[in-house]
């Protein structure tokens, strides 16, 4: 049964620091999540293709996507994933340090499921992780549960 498995959370972010902080926040939240980190858009696309080839069950349950990344930025990834008949079903939460209205609007135009500004305080980050996992992994029903 899938529900016995840990949920898979994919972080696409070129910042190693943000990965470390998220990992620590997950740890401090006492949440059982399989956190995968891709340091670039290209790496994320390869990873998702690989997982898709292994079977839909191997795909992440949620993607946290940064916007500002070299070569393939978050908007490009959003566009590609939301055009893929299988991958488009994975909810994508944009996790960006930008609070510019333009970035927020564009993300939703490209069908992001949510937009979160990276919290300034660590406690806030823990709260965000708890809220996100609670909503997407407990309250919400996902296609490959």
């Amino acid at each position, binding site marked *: 049964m899938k529900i016995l498995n840990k949920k898979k959370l994919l972080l696409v972010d070129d910042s190693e*620091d*943000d990965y470390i*902080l998220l990992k*620590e926040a997950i740890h*401090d939240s006492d949440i059982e999540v399989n956190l995968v980190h891709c340091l670039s858009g290209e790496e994320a696309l390869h990873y998702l293709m690989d997982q898709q080839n292994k079977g839909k069950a191997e795909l992440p349950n949620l993607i946290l996507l940064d916007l500002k990344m070299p070569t393939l930025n978050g908007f490009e990834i959003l566009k590609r994933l939301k055009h893929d008949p299988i991958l488009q079903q994975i909810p994508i939460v944009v996790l960006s340090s*930008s609070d510019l*209205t333009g970035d927020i609007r564009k993300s939703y135009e490209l069908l992001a499921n949510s937009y979160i500004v990276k919290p*300034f*305080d*660590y406690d806030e980050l823990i709260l965000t992780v708890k809220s996100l996992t609670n909503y997407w992994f407990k309250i919400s029903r996902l296609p490959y549960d």
Partner: protein
Amino acid sequence: MSQLNSTEAEELIDIIIDILAGKQPITNKTIENIVDPKYKELLVGLMVLSEDANYNAELRKKLERNFSNLDKLHTKLFQNIPVPICFLNENLECESYNDSFEDYFEISPSVKKIELDTIIPDLRNIFDDYLNVLKGKLTNFQLVEKIKLITTTGETNWGIINMSSVDLEDEDKYILIIQDITSFHNLEEELTLKSDELVKNNMELENLTRITTQDLKEPIRLINNYAQLLQKRNFQDSNDSSGEWINSIISTSKRIKGLLEEVMTFTTITDKEVDISAVDVSLIVEQVKLNLNRLIIENNVQINYSDLPSIRADKYQLLEIFQNLISFIIKNRGDINPEITIKYKEYDTNWIFLVVDNGMRIDPNYFTKLFSSENSLYTNNVNSSVSLAICKKIIEFYKGHIWVESNMGIGSIFYFTISKEV
């Protein structure tokens, strides 16, 4: 009466003919020779007539001389005046022009007729437009226009033409006077270019500020997060000051974040989409009290107001004004608990708001610098060094002014105006 003999009669006739021809003046001697009083009387009459005729002839000569002198003077003036002038006929053909006109347009003296359309190409169109406006009535008109002028060697200049009608009895003529403004025009163009460049540079600078502040928030956020993570993991030795140092890192990060947000607000506040509508100022003050709740409680602040008006403005911009002013007052409070009163007065064209406190510490020497974005007087306070500059920027957007009056330790009054014509 004695009869003249034939010889005497012939002599008299000759004299009269000579007199009438002006060859011989009538003198008293001539008259004395005449014995017959009837002929004497006739000659006296002739003498008077002759004197009148001589007088009239002299007068005419004098008038002709004067007229000739006037004509010479006019020609001299027309030719030598250092302003290009030409006369046009009713078909706008150049009939005559002065030396200055010739020099200005570099017309060769050998040229018999100059085509006006080649040296003032837009004149005919402007004149036709003018004609249409006046519906063909062209008496006593004067046309003043900035216009392009092209010399016969192809050099382009700019001038102001002053064209007016000369209403002669038998024909219509126009006089065209040209004032060269090429240097002013070039200066104006240069100024426009510089101004455009300045606007572009300002936009680039604003974009750069926007990007820089946005990018700087990233490392500050990471520093703050790591410091708080260290704090959470109890990474501090009770024997040293590491705990305090971590606290300092966190508070400094928050200060930098506050400053970056202020800079961001200052840069973007009047660029954002504004929604001008009727805004109840009382509700804005209530929102400020909610937003600054913690600061208000910590500093035991009393905020008073009653019956504030509803004005036309963008509610977020109005909120920024009141919030920045009130938080500035609280952060620069004196020893007593701050009491802030908000009042207003309505005038025909604007509103004036007064934010009165009971003892803020502002040195009057800093009044002029207080609202400047260069000001960084209160560096220990987050959100205060740029906050009043933000207020000023928004207020100026509403064609208003902001100023302050203060008695050290007694209190200050911040005044600001908001135009009703937004």
